[in-house]
């Protein structure tokens, strides 16, 4: 709460954040898919600034282009117009400065949990000794509660456990920006709650700028500093942005009991229903 409310007053005349506070900057972003019937414009003139150490969730109707936007930030999808920059530098293709947690865990099923995390760690810390890299990987696996499953093959883990490895893998490469594409969408609600807690606990320590897509209004409020609402496509853009002024660290209980919670919830649901 402190950061958000204190900083909200510092917007410049154009309604933008000062550039030294911005981690991720999308400027008049456009995405066009050519089809036989002519171009299909998914995103048009999309502007969004995300500050350092900010957790932003994005909600919107299915097919509105949320995932397209996220994979463009990740560099896995070409940009048709406008640009994306991280710390003022335009991105070119994918890279480990933008870690991704995919909707499906996307672990290599033939590797153990540890090997899966090491795959990224080895790549990002090539100068570290083998023991150091092992320690990094094990540290994050412990953080997600998998200290007993280091040497289990990914194919032997449950979906929820696999996604925990996915979280560990993403944090272990110490990205500047963390991109989460509906990471808990395939899990049952109990597991989802557990993983939200784990995610937010690690995030509180690491404070990595995070952008997360979700369909779940409660999840969006619980995790985020700001909730970005996207309009329905084609030509989707940012519809509205809601600041969530809850103190951090948050607990689920305190959030649910907060007076503003239902106000935020109503705001989001009203947006989605129109």
């Amino acid at each position, binding site marked *: 709460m402190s950061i958000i409310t204190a900083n909200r007053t510092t917007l410049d005349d154009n309604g933008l954040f000062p550039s030294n506070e911005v981690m991720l900057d999308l400027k008049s972003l456009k995405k066009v898919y050519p089809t036989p019937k002519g171009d299909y414009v998914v995103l048009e003139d999309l502007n969004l600034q995300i500050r350092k150490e900010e957790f932003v969730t994005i909600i919107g109707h299915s097919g509105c282009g949320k995932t397209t936007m996220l994979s463009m930030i*990740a560099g*896995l999808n070409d940009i048709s117009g406008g640009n994306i920059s991280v710390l003022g530098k335009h991105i070119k293709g*994918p890279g*480990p400065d933008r870690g*991704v947690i995919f909707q*499906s865990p*996307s672990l290599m099923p033939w590797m153990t949990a540890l090997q899966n995390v090491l795959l990224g760690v080895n790549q990002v810390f090539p100068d570290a000794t083998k023991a150091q890299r092992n320690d990094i990987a094990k540290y994050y696996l412990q953080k997600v509660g998998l200290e007993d499953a280091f040497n289990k093959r990914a194919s032997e883990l449950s979906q929820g456990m696999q996604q925990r490895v996915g979280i560990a893998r993403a944090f272990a490469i110490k990205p500047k920006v963390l991109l989460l594409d509906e990471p808990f969408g395939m899990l049952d609600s109990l597991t989802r709650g557990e993983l939200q807690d784990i995610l937010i606990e690690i995030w509180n320590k690491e404070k990595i700028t995070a952008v997360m897509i979700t369909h779940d209004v409660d999840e969006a409020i619980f995790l985020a500093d700001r909730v970005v609402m996207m309009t329905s496509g084609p030509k989707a853009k940012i519809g509205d942005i809601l600041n969530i002024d809850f103190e951090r660290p948050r607990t689920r209980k305190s959030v649910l009991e907060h007076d503003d919670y239902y106000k935020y919830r109503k705001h989001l649901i009203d947006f989605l229903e129109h």
Partner: protein
Amino acid sequence: MKQSITLDKITKFMGFEFLRTLKLIFTGKIEKEDFRNFLRKVVVPLASMLLFIGLWHMGSQALYNTEATYKIEKALTEQGQEAADAMEACIASGAVKCQPNTLPSPAQVWASFNTLLDDHFAIRADKQAFAEKTAALNAKRIAEGKDAITYTGRPSFVDQILTSIKTVFAGFLLALLIAVPIGIVIGLSKTLRSSVNWLIQIFKPVSPVVWLLLVFMIVKTLTKDSNSDSAFIISFISVGLCSMWATLVNTAMGVSSVDKDYINVAKVLKLGTFQKVFKVILPSALPLIFTGLRITLSVSWMVLIAIELLAQSPGLGSFVWEEFQNGAIDSNSKIIVAMFIIGGIGFLLDRIMLTVQNMISFNKNDGI
């Protein structure tokens, strides 16, 4: 205890689960469910096997009778009643010279199997005797710098089986060494894939016989000055060339159809080409590669017989052909023995590949 667990695992892996049930029966620890399994997996297959042998027996009897009647009638029309009676008596007495030549009965095949085994032991004993007899002489010859005298008698049936297995493994290895690397390379590059696709599609359906002739043309020229065993070289290269296509196509497909999620992970982590290929693409293509190798092995065993037959390479194929040309009274039943041996070994090879495939694959799918 631990050993029996691993034994259970191995038998289950190889698809011989019924062995476990058999063990349970003998140890008296059988449950109702197990018993039903036992019925389904042991009793029913055994019954169908017996039925098959019964049908075969009746069929061969019928054929025997047809052939005998024909022989008698032929004697009757060509030489008169006396000759026909003589022929009938001769057939009934079981004399070799007038036996009808037709599909042998199961009993005859079993007898031939035993003959072949006895023959094998006789030849082995003969070989041993020869080795003992020439041991001193050979030592002397080698000391004088001359070549040792080797046994040149005919190979036994078991020797021929071993030669065939050797040829198949050499061919399989060749197929593996050619098809897997090429499959990986063309799987990685779309351009390469489409550029060689036509060649693959054209060569894939070519008959083993044609491959043999092609290999013969090349090897004959290449081995002109050497005294190496060109029949063996020709047959194993032909076997390799015939059977490698399944592996080639499967490898290329496995490599080119890696799950997009894995590729995205590799992209985000910026893995180098080497790491991408060896840590992500190849392991994920491995199950398909092994499916290809399994097909390759069974194809190479299948074409081997035809190729050996044509290449005059000593092995089961030439055994079958020689027996057919031989036309002795038990030739037909020896051919059928060879047929069962070929089938049995093919089945065993397939099981071995299935076992390896199951060990390699990361999703434990049960094979057929």
